């Protein structure tokens, strides 16, 4: 059967992608950030998954105000990097895994999570920056990402976004779905976005490193309690865009120590933890958790 062997968490700041695309990663501003991902790239090579289930949010790219799905799973064979206004990122297309994605969609909907199914969409920095961070530079024509990717786009743009509890529960449903797939596949689930940041208004530039680090601690050790944190705490403490962090709870909910909303086993092993301020307007957090 397929199984989820690890979860990866990372911010997906667009400027990180731009720094890689414009070959600025060795500059003093960026060097400390990329150093924090050196371990992760080696880890990815040593623990290459068959599929990455990648939770991210679309930033007014594939979804305008015409349609605002709360949870949208990609079941396509391929996704093109989007032109977000600066031109498409020079990275390879993202190959999907239509069979597993469709299986997960059917299973998760039968578990009462009404996913929107998407067969055609472009993917923006929310999805491609995590891939770049974990897999390094890839030539847009000659290069390729190491494995197929199943995108799950979460609405965190128009309020109200799904609650932390809802996200945590969805993660558990996704793990059940993966484990009911017959083929023997090694699946990673990634939760992306955050950490504290605010991109608007007089409070733009807000960073709350103390809150972020407590979030990381709790995500590892007591996710079932962290899931109860209401939206307003994210907005007030981590900034209006810091609410992206609810997506991390989807990945955490898919770890095998959680079932039926409770912890049933030992916490996952922390393979890597990194925190850095700033990347552009944002605090960057990163975790790799391995299933026991």
């Amino acid at each position: 059967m397929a199984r989820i062997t690890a979860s990866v968490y990372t911010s997906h700041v667009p400027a990180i992608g731009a720094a890689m695309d414009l070959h600025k990663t060795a500059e003093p501003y960026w060097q400390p950030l990329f150093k924090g991902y050196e371990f992760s790239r080696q880890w990815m090579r040593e623990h290459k998954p068959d599929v990455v289930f990648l939770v991210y949010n679309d930033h007014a790219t594939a979804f305008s105000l015409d349609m605002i799905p709360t949870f949208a799973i990609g079941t396509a064979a391929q996704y093109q990097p989007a032109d977000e206004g600066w031109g498409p990122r020079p990275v390879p297309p993202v190959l999907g895994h239509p069979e597993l994605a469709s299986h997960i969609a059917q299973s998760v909907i039968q578990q009462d999570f009404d996913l929107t199914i998407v067969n055609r969409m472009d993917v923006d920095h929310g999805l491609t920056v995590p891939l770049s961070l974990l897999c390094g530079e890839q030539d847009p024509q000659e290069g390729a990402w190491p494995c197929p990717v199943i995108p799950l786009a979460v609405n965190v743009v128009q309020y109200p976004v799904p609650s932390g509890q809802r996200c945590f529960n969805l993660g558990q449903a996704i793990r059940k779905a993966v484990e009911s797939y017959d083929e023997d596949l090694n699946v990673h689930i990634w939760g992306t976005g955050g950490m504290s940041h605010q991109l608007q208004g007089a409070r733009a530039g807000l960073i709350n490193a103390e809150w972020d680090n407590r979030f990381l601690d709790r995500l590892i050790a007591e996710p079932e309690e962290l899931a109860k944190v209401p939206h307003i705490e994210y907005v007030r403490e981590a900034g209006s865009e810091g609410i992206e962090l609810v997506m991390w709870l989807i990945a955490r909910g898919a770890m095998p120590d959680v079932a039926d909303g409770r912890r049933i086993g030992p916490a996952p092993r922390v393979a890597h933890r990194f925190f850095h301020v700033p990347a552009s307007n944002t605090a960057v957090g990163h975790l790799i958790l391995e299933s026991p």
Partner: protein
Amino acid sequence: MALDKPYLDVPGTIIFDADQSRKGYWLNQFCMSLMKPANRERFKADERAYLDEWAMTEEQKQAVLARDLNWCMRTGGNIYFLAKIGATDAKSFQQMAGSMTGMSEDEYRAMMLGGGRSIEGNRYLGEDGDAQPHRQPQGARPGPRNKA
């Protein structure tokens, strides 16, 4: 019965909720159109004429022409949509975010390098943090700084 909006007492912050989204529909859809290179060129060639193709309010058009992102947000704009205007102007996200604070680009960049804006005094309206209304505009040089 009114909807619960517990976020209205967060200083310097407009939450893009269903009401804002309804107000800003055409403003944000105009922004989306700038994801196509041909539309970016047409907009740059004659901004006013391009804006007049959209069912936006006159105030929204004025806010876009002034590149006043706070004004755009008050009229229903969302930052991820408004970012398409910034992209068309070859502005970075940091330049756009900074433009809403009254700080110069250098001041804002220095604040971020120094660890970002502190949460202290900026959680609730009525405290004394730097994002509070009575401390606006921020930055060493007073006055509006939201030009293109």
